[in-house]
């Protein structure tokens, strides 16, 4: 086990970095797109059940099936990192949109009324009242998306996207349990680390907004 790590640490490190880039890029894109989407949805609440329903539907598609579908799609699909990032992005996007929406909707209406009564514009209410108040819920959503992305990124190896899934799939093929283990361990450590970090941030923020 240790010997395997020492002999292959270069490759393990490279695949870990690839893994992190896959999940990180997808997450960043999901934030950039999902944040305004979630905020916009709170101004069009009649659409919310439809958008959130569609979001939930996308999330029920098994990751292998989604990757397989993307593999066969022209232009955006195919093999490699790009379709894998698209798949991870789709999963993460929905969690981000949902949490931004849920966070803003749960803000105490009395605070929004106070903001409006003091003479804030709708934009100022969003930026000065709703977003800071929604931040813990938002970070909670980000945490779930991050863990989901880091986990699902292992499967992305199936369409040639690289990452730690390479070690796991190859290890299974060769019947090498150490190889499988050294694919799984860094992925798990990263997921747990991100989870704990964001959980602490979330709790600190939650204390701030009460």
């Amino acid at each position, binding site marked *: 086990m240790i010997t395997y790590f020492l002999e292959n640490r270069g490759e393990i490190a490279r695949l870990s970095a690839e893994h992190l880039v896959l999940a990180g890029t997808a997450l960043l894109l999901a934030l950039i797109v999902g944040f305004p989407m979630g905020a916009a949805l709170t101004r069009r609440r009649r659409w919310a059940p439809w958008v959130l329903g569609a979001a939930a539907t996308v999330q029920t598609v098994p990751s292998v099936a989604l990757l397989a579908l993307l593999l066969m799609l022209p232009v955006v699909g195919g093999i490699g990192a790009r379709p894998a990032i698209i798949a991870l992005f789709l999963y993460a996007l929905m969690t981000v949109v949902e949490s931004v929406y849920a966070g803003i909707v749960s803000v105490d209406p009395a605070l929004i*009324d106070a903001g409006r009564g003091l003479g804030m514009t709708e934009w100022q209410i969003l930026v000065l009242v709703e977003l800071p108040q929604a931040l813990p819920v938002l970070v909670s959503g980000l945490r779930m998306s991050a863990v989901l992305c880091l986990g699902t990124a292992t499967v992305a190896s199936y369409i040639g996207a690289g990452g730690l899934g390479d070690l796991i799939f190859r290890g299974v093929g060769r019947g090498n349990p150490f190889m499988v283990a050294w694919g799984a361990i860094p992925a798990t450590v990263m997921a747990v680390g991100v989870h704990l970090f964001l959980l602490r941030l979330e709790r600190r923020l939650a204390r701030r*907004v009460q």
Partner: protein
Amino acid sequence: MIQFEGVSVVYEGGVRALNGVSVAFPRGETTCLVGASGSGKSTLLRLVNRLVDAQEGRVLLNGQDVRSRDAVEHRRGIGYCVQGGGLLPHLTVAENVSLVPRLLGWAPVKAAAAVERTLGLVRLDPARYGARRAAALSGGERQRVAIARALAADPEVLLLDEPLGALDPHLRETLEDELRDLFRRLRKTVVFVTHDMYTAVRLADWIAVLDGGRLLQFGPPREVVTAPANEQVTALLGRRRADLERALSEAS
């Protein structure tokens, strides 16, 4: 002066909150709006800073129809404070108090001076309280900060919607006494919503009694207590007539 001319408000879903209310609140004096929940007292207050617009009738502030002005600009010129204070918990006391000055684009120095001045008015030491987070305050302190926030840009009109409703009776009476003195000293036009006739008698120069969206009576506290316009007003005076009469003699 705040004038209401035949004002009616119907909320979404058909609830009629106000029905043909005509009344005028004098400038520089405190008017308390008294009534049970659902009487329309909060709606009447919210008409003044356009949190609600009337379907019928007009609301005039110093002779100008409030609807002729941009709602956001209009609100920045009027102090507003609600039950519980509505302080933003993620901001400090000083940041909360300086919100309206900053919305108005005041220079930081001028806004800081306004914070000092208004915290002093509500008897909070700016040096001790300014940097504290709003969430770390007691109920009474929170109310004081909220009133300081409403006063910060030195508005001519103050709208207070049950500002002391969440406090225990003893603390409430102390703050009521302070507020009465403060309002008289600053000569603000104050509209103060309360469900408690005792509070109204202690604070008000004028009392407007509302029920079911209609104005039942408008007059000085003595008149409302000694000559209630009808049985509904009598019912709102409640069983504590002796308390009210004592408050009348204390307030005058």
